[in-house]
């Protein structure tokens, strides 16, 4: 709903429906401002680069980003040599000219290497839950940037939940079981997260204060790490966003002038018959 309001677009009442219906997170999402938001927003590439570091050090062990290639990292400002070095750091499967299966160092043209060979392996290694691919995660969730940002910071001690929060949690349980007396209870191997739909997430807390050390000395508390990570994931979801907005400004200016000319022509042509 926020997305719709902030975009200030036409708000036919029923268009708002799907966004609401697809929601279902826990408590209100944490609020913050991302530079890429709004009709003219652009990526903060320093943050995107830091976010890539967070992904590489903390997320990549479980989450694939199969739609990205190492070469794409040049678009966030990394040098050719840096991209080559990052690619060469991983070993990728290939077939040599005799047809034998080999492993070789990665090249910029390779896709990001996935941590698991297939989904079954991913499930087996993660308590039955397959970590989703993160290439499109910001686009694939309602208010995706704020959702991921909140999710990273949504891990909490369930015992500390206030009475009001408890009521919301019990509401989930009632809806899920259809039992009016049901109360919220954690399943085994799940973690309490106030921003995950249903509030029980298989992923243990992935990020904590100070988990990643930035070379540029940017502070590394959890909100900052989360924000940087989201900057990177947002860029990964739509690398062509800036090209889209830049082209859009030119197109809209052109169309406004054209509309003005068309209207003037229409007025002139019709002047004699009114």
């Amino acid at each position, binding site marked *: 709903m926020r997305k719709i309001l902030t975009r200030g677009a036409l708000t036919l009442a029923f268009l708002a*429906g799907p966004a609401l219906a697809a929601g279902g997170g826990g408590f209100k999402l944490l609020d913050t401002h991302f530079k890429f938001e709004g009709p003219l927003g652009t990526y903060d590439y320093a943050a995107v680069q830091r976010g890539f570091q967070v992904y590489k050090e903390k997320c990549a062990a479980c989450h694939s980003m199969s739609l990205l290639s190492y070469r794409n990292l040049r678009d966030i400002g990394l040098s050719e040599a840096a991209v080559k070095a990052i690619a060469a750091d991983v070993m990728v499967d290939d077939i040599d000219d005799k047809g034998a299966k080999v492993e070789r160092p990665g090249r910029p043209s390779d896709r990001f290497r996935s941590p698991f060979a297939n989904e079954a392996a991913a499930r087996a290694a993660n308590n039955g839950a397959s970590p989703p*691919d993160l290439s499109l995660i910001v686009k694939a969730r309602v208010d995706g940037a704020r959702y991921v940002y909140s999710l990273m910071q949504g891990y909490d001690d369930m015992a500390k939940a206030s009475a009001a929060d408890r009521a919301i949690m019990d509401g989930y349980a009632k809806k899920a079981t259809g039992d009016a007396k049901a109360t919220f209870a954690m399943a085994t191997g799940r973690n309490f997260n106030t921003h995950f739909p249903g509030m029980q997430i298989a992923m243990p807390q992935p990020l904590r204060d100070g988990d990643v050390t930035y070379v540029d000395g940017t502070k590394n508390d959890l909100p900052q790490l989360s924000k940087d990570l989201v900057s990177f994931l947002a860029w990964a979801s739509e690398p062509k966003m800036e090209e*889209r907005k830049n082209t859009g400004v030119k197109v809209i200016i052109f169309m406004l002038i054209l509309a003005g000319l*068309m209207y003037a022509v229409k007025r002139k042509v019709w002047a004699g018959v009114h």
Partner: protein
Amino acid sequence: MSSSQGAPAFTNPIVKWIDRRLPIFTFMHHEYGVFPTPRNFNYWWSFGGIAMVMLITMIVTGIVLAMNYTPHVDFAFDSVERIMRDVNYGWLLRYLHVNGASFFFIAVFIHIFRGLYYGSYKNPRELLWILGVVILLLMMATAFMGYVLPWGQMSFWGATVITNLFSALPVIGDPIVTLLWGGFSVDNPTLNRFFSLHYLLPFVIVGVVVLHVTAMHVAGSNNPIGIDPKGPQDTLPFSPYYVTKDGFAVVAFLLVYLAFVFFAPDFFGEPENYVKADRLVTPPHIVPEWYFLPFYAILRAVPDKLGGVLAMFGAILVLFVLPWLDTARVRSARFRPIYKWFFWLLVVDCFVLGYCGANPPEGYFIPLSRVATLYYFAHFLVILPVLGKIERPLPLPNSIAESVLGGARK
């Protein structure tokens, strides 16, 4: 066709040579040059031309997208993302096509409601109207199959829900579903045949549009006061008057469309469709694209599956017989003081249905969607036949020219 002027005198020898053998220039001159068009059109009359522009936009962008798309369950999702990331201006083509579908429906819905308000479906334009309803049906089929192609979660589950509807039909239901699927579930054969048909149907639409426009040129256009032109003082040649007026309307419409393409390209989309199709994970709420929501609400309003399917299709089929359900002699709602109110009630009803369709069928949405569904059918099956008999229309003007220019001048 309805113009009585003879062939214009062409001076260019090549044009002359061609026109004597294939009179396309004479045809264009008659049908789009001097074609006598009522002089009192408002901008609601521009939406036919706007819809045409959107149809062409969809076909052109669609053909180029098809050059880069792979209709296979293992590659479809990734090939769409390849278009977004690696194909030159692929993101633009796809956003134009995706939002183009929404704006095509916006244009067509406005066009249809304009016809409803001004009685454009009445004698002698019944066939013209029926052909329009055929176009709407074809558009819905095309849009539905197009939405399946990216093979996201909503593509897959939308396809599963909608194709399953046919299984409600007795005897022929299950064979139809198997035929649609090309197997026993939504799978690769389904995606392949939907891609094939999604490419075919737009050209069928073009064919029916040609018939629709031809029928319009035979009967002549309706107009905001709904009385026939009585002479040359009531009409203007299509060019330059309506070329310039429709031209401005098209540019203004495209301006809004492009604003969405460049600044809110995912506004009409579902985030869930950026998740690759997974037959083991059902999304919490399966919702169709917004332009199907009123029909989806009607489907779910009926507590019986077969009844719901029949009601949903009935909601469109009833439009085919609309020219005979409306018993009023006067066309335009401007002179129908009571119908005018029922028209706006129907508009509100369609929005209410859309709102119900977007929300899960629980709580107050169930009674609300039932009342709205009943009202939708009552409008066509009860209100219109009765209203035509009891309503006293206002006095009609003597001519279009008189109504536009005032009685004193002519």
